[in-house]
């Protein structure tokens, strides 16, 4: 019985196709972009904030469609 169950067990998806970790990564990138956009210390961080935010937002939109 155990052998039967083991043979039919679905292979685990790779990390970059799993919704949970990828969503967490996208949220982290958005948060980083957000902090870069509004921080008052370094102009270069502000310059690259938009691309960071955009990358995070696009990534979140895509990975949130992945199955659980």
């Amino acid at each position, binding site marked *: 019985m155990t052998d039967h169950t083991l043979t039919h067990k679905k292979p685990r998806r790779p990390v970059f196709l799993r919704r949970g970790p990828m*969503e967490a990564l996208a949220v982290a990138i958005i948060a980083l972009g957000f902090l870069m956009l*509004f921080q008052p210390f370094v*102009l270069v961080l*502000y*310059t690259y904030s*938009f691309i960071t*935010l955009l990358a995070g*937002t696009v990534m*979140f939109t895509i990975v949130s469609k992945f199955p659980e």
Partner: protein
Amino acid sequence: MTASHDTFSEKMADAAIRATPEPLAVRVRGLSDRAIAWLFIAPTIVLLLAINIFPLFWAIYLSFTNFRANRPNAVVQNVGLGNYSRILNDPDIWASMQTTAHFVFWTIVLQTLIGFALAYLIDRKFRGHAFWTTLILIPMMLSPAVVGNFWRFLYEPQIGLFAYAVSFVSGIPTSDIQMLGNVHLAPWAIIIVDTWMWTPYVMLICLAGLRSIPDYIYEAAEVDRASPWRQFWSITVPMALPFIMLAVLFRGIENFKMFDMVNLLTGGGPGSTTEVASIALKRDAFEAWATGRSSAFAIVLFVAVFGLANIYVKALNKVKQR
């Protein structure tokens, strides 16, 4: 006689059938339920596309051009990422982002704390709580134009009630209390007005959250001899948290776009101390007439708010799953 009467009746019936318009049900008989549903929602979708989606895509297109709205006949050239590069390397726009962040942070903190405290008090259901709820909700019902104008009068150093009250408490002469003219006080003047106006909104959402907590949970906690302090932190706050987060999300998005109140109270001044992003955007679009550049600025703000909303929706789902 009977035969001719029958013929006449048949002719009349035929004429009546031909004259009667075909009922809608017969005409749409061939349509599926799905098609009829699409027919009903199509006007809304068309309106949404025309009012929301088309302007968004048009702004994205304009953000890559040198289009100027005051020169509609001039040749429009593609400037690539030039507008974005200028926006993201401009120290003045960077400063306006910091002003926005300061405004959004403090308004959200104050509105959430005061709004939740008011909701907690109103939820006690004391005598006359309905009257007080209505009274507290009044600022939210006023137009921002009205609020901006009468707070200008309240902030007047010579005749304003606010300056008089502060002077009465602190002993500082009223002429020294320049809420809208002082570079250090002007940002706080706007925060005070926004908090005064929108705290009732946060209170309403928090009140809905508090009213949704079943009484039996508190009763069980009392049986277990949990202190009111423990009940507040272990029951009230966790169960009202999704509502609080929703209020923070709504106010956060709204305050990023804050324009009318700031424009009426200070117009971005003194200097540029209260020049939030939307005021800078308006100056770029309608004073400098750099429509392409201001479109790029608007897209940067849109992506920031959209990203923030994504984070919040994820956090909200996580809290609701607990």
